[in-house]
């Protein structure tokens, strides 16, 4: 006998992904990865802010001229007809993201993402105006006074200027920037002003206020990047076998690597991490690591760690500087977390601390999960090879396509009103409109000819036509094709367009109609 089991869905109060965000106060850090990120910021933002001002052959080097539907990029001109190149470029970008994510995790997030890059600049501004982490926290906690108003005011003023300049530059990619600058600000057109302010507002909000929330809640890549990870992917990881049990020490102690204790076994080490996360030390509490990681099922609790003897201690001195420098405010010691944007700030911070206490670097380091777990790791694996080959193929195809573009597109439209007409000498005539697109930046001359396999006497009524087309111009050429009066029924015709002063040729097929029999 079957009985209904009295089940019902428990309405989960915390069904939302969203948690109220604490403000993160990233501490200043210096080291290898920080230098790398600064270099990336300078390079990428340099390109962004500089490119619209560069000139190329007397015109703006990078100008996406939407009103004219022409896209100038360093001497190359693209038209909407070249959309294939843009879509291929987007496919290449997606493949590159897959490839680099599988290889070395979120390199894009840590160094190249506009969100990271602009946030980095916003944090620099914040640091100049309000000082480093501790000073900023104190300032935020302090009552409003003259200093607080001045410091915060300066920061907001600089942020606003930076955001407006960013918005202006962005629109400068679409509207000639020197002209735009001359018209600042009252000569701006309505849409120009709108997009400048809109982009400035987005920069101000995203880089100044939302910051890591953009990565955690808004970015789709952050949500699916884990699908591209495997145990051979380079990640930023804390080595619990070496670091645990963590804790401050009163007197000098050699690294575990030089002591009899050596590395812990995996199970013990991860158990210590779990218990430390369940029972945070006073220092951990002060650092207030955020993050959504759950190291065990709901309701699982653990005993606090016992007091360890000095000889048992691991290399982590629990200074929590890795937490303080983290721009997303997580504790990397809890393992790989989806909030981690792989910026490497914790590696730099921990290396500096290890240096200070005289331990070898690399307690937190770029490594693979397999390495950490002491298993063999392989960089060259099938998915890397497949992504890599696909990427190379697409890049190769794209470069070939762009360098071998025909400077000419031709299309032909038959006159819709009349099938044919009869000329005064009795010949049969058909009318067409040829659409020629000169995709080059220079003007070119083209010649139109017509031929047919089964109508030898066919010709253009006014002889072969010579057409001049400006760079990027779409020319409509009405042509009339004449044939002898004996022609009847449907015939294939071919229009040949070739460049006079350029190596370009296009053949278009159409039909010629005479009176039906």
């Amino acid at each position, binding site marked *: 006998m079957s009985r209904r089991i009295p089940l019902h869905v428990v309405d989960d109060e915390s069904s939302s992904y969203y948690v*109220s965000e604490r403000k993160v106060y990233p501490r200043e850090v210096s080291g290898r990865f920080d230098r790398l990120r600064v270099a990336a910021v300078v390079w990428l933002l340099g390109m962004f802010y500089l490119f619209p001002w560069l000139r190329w052959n007397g015109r703006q080097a990078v100008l996406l001229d*939407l*009103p004219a*539907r022409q896209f100038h990029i360093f001497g190359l001109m693209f038209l909407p007809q070249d*959309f294939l190149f843009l879509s291929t470029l987007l496919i290449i970008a997606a493949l590159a993201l897959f490839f680099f994510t599988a290889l070395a995790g979120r390199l894009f997030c840590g160094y190249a993402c506009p969100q990271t890059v602009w946030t980095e600049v916003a944090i620099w501004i914040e640091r100049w105006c309000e000082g480093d*982490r501790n000073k900023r926290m104190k300032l*935020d906690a302090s009552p409003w006074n003259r200093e607080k108003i001045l410091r915060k005011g300066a920061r907001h003023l600089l942020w606003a200027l930076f955001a407006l300049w960013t918005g202006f530059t962005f629109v400068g990619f679409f509207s000639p920037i020197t002209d735009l600058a001359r018209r600042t600000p009252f000569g701006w057109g309505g849409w120009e002003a*709108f997009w400048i302010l809109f982009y400035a507002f987005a920069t101000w909000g995203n880089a100044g206020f939302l910051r890591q929330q953009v990565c955690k*809640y808004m970015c789709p890549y952050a949500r699916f990047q884990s699908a591209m990870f495997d145990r051979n992917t380079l990640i930023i990881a804390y080595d619990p076998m070496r670091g645990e049990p963590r804790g401050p020490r009163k007197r000098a102690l050699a690294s575990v690597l030089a002591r009899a204790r050596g590395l812990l076994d995996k199970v013990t080490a991860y158990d210590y991490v779990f218990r430390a996360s369940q029972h945070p030390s006073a220092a951990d509490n002060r650092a*207030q690591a955020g993050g959504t990681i759950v190291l065990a099922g709901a309701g699982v609790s653990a005993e606090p760690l016992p007091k360890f003897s000095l000889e048992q201690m691991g290399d982590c001195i629990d200074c929590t500087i890795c937490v303080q420098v983290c721009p997303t405010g997580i504790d990397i010691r809890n393992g790989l977390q989806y909030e981690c944007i792989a910026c490497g700030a914790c590696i730099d911070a921990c290396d500096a601390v290890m240096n200070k206490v005289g331990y070898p670097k690399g307690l937190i380091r770029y490594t693979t999960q397999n390495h950490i777990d002491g298993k063999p790791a392989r960089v060259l694996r099938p998915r890397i090879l497949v992504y890599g080959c696909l990427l190379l193929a697409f890049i190769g195809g794209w470069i070939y396509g762009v360098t071998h573009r025909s400077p000419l597109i031709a299309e032909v439209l038959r006159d819709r009103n009349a099938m044919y007409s009869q000329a005064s000498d009795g010949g049969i005539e058909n009318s067409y409109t040829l659409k020629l697109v000169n995709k080059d930046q220079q003007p070119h001359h083209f010649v139109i000819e017509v031929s047919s396999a089964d109508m030898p006497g066919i010709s253009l009524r006014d002889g072969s036509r010579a057409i001049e087309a400006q760079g990027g111009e779409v020319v409509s050429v009405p042509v009339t094709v004449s044939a002898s009066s004996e022609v009847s029924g449907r015939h294939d015709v071919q229009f040949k367009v070739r460049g006079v002063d350029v190596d370009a040729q296009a053949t278009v097929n159409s039909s010629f109609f005479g009176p039906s029999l």
Partner: protein
Amino acid sequence: MSRRTTHPPEQEPTPASLQRVGAILWPSFFVAGVVTMVFFAYVDPEALQQMTFPSLKLSRELGYSLGFFLIWLATASASLFTWILLRPSRQVRRGFHPGSKS
């Protein structure tokens, strides 16, 4: 000052309604941007205008912007619809209250 005081001050939670507005507007904005790009890569706003409202005087810039906002409206409607469908049953029973917690 001792180091003990240097912990981040508490932040006021973001209101649930703001999160909801963000979750509806942001993905629709993103998709609208992509759709606008693909659409206008193939369709010239001027040609579209001649086909639809030849009597109105619309520039290309206006056409692009108008197109974007119309597409955003469409995608945002879809997002809003999804949100309505996903509302927990207890809330539906209580009726629509814009201020209620989700």
